């Protein structure tokens, strides 16, 4: 096996010592991931506490609640996390058309390959560096809804929840690295699936994801991406 090892050595390449910049970047990523993990753990606990508080207040106030008794502390947190669908009235995108959109969202970018929806609150803020916030970057899917056809080099959906999307069959697949983010795969008559990626934390329920998907129509000019 000596010769095999020699050739693998060639593929592995030389051992290049890391620069201080690389080491610092690794450290920064690690710290960020740890902070995020701890924040999620804390948020998880807080969510449970808020839910318990809301449940307790609702139970205690049932039958005798007045407007002044509403649980002010819990209400905003719940409201902020929920997004509802409304009829889409803006200009229709190119490769795809949509019947509904989350309330207060807009079409940030579209072409024959994909359609990107983002929250309207990011509009009208010139001077924000898109590289510092993916919401402002119209090439990034982070925090948004992305619509596309299945990539040419992509396999079919992984295991997920089978759903009926309008008159089509679909699968709602949870991402391995997300909590409530999902990708909806919708079988298309011509073969390639329609994919709708709902990023983590945008506040749509799974039912609303399916309703949104039922309102997405693939135009004849829509193209499959690659990579």
């Amino acid at each position, binding site marked *: *096996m*000596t*010769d*095999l*090892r020699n*050739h*693998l*050595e*060639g*593929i*592995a*390449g030389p*051992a*290049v*010592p*890391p620069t201080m910049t*690389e*080491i610092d*970047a*690794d*450290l920064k*990523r*690690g*710290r960020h*991931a*740890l902070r995020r*993990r701890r924040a999620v753990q804390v948020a998880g606990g807080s969510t449970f506490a808020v839910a318990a508080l809301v449940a307790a207040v609702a139970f205690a106030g049932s039958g005798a609640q007045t407007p002044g008794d509403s649980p002010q502390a819990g209400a905003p947190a719940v409201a902020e996390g929920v997004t509802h669908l409304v009829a889409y009235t803006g200009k229709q995108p190119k490769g795809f058309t949509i019947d509904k959109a989350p309330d207060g969202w807009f079409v940030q*970018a579209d072409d*024959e*390959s*994909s359609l*990107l929806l983002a929250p309207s609150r990011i509009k009208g803020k010139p001077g924000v560096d898109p590289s510092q916030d*993916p919401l402002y970057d*119209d*090439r*990034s*899917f*982070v925090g948004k809804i*992305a619509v*596309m056809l299945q*990539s040419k080099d*992509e396999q079919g959906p*992984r295991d997920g929840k089978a759903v009926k999307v309008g008159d089509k069959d679909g699968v709602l697949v949870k*991402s*391995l*690295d*997300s909590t409530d*983010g999902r*990708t909806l795969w919708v079988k298309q008559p011509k073969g390639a699936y329609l*994919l709708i*990626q709902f990023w983590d934390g945008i506040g749509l329920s799974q039912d609303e994801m399916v309703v949104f998907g039922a309102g997405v129509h693939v135009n004849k000019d829509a*193209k*499959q*991406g*690659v*990579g």
Partner: protein
Amino acid sequence: MTSERDQQFHDFVRARRAGLVRTATLLTAGDAHLAEDLVQSTLTKLYVAWPAFQRAHSPEGYVRRVLVNALTDERRRLWWRRERPTAELPDRPHTAAEPARGELDDGLRTALRDLPPKMRAAVVFRYFYDLDVAETADALGCSHGTVKSQTARALDRLREALQSNALFLRQGVTQ
């Protein structure tokens, strides 16, 4: 302010990053970009789980396991895309890990690339790092029997893919 964890991690990265990049390059059959992603992902996971890593019975084995898991995760993550797709791929320059090393290395790289990731990892750990079956099984999270069968099948496939290269057959995987 630098914590003890930061300092230990910093020392670890300085000492081990180059080796991890080489291993990741082999696990990805010479894909330098993916290898860098794997290393970054592995190091991030190690930082988060630093106490567990330090308590590990075999820190070396722990790192190998995290690296292989990162490889598996990365392949699953391909569908969970973060950037817009395009209908056509842009032209890409040759990467540093893809120079013309000769027909033999190119052939081996292609043959490795055609292997399933875990089968490729089995070859790398067994025949590049000389790990025994138990250590390789630990890294891959599979049984000893699976390691044996995977490496045997991998060598068969490498042999088949490189059949046209008499030199390699004479000196390499057939012996």
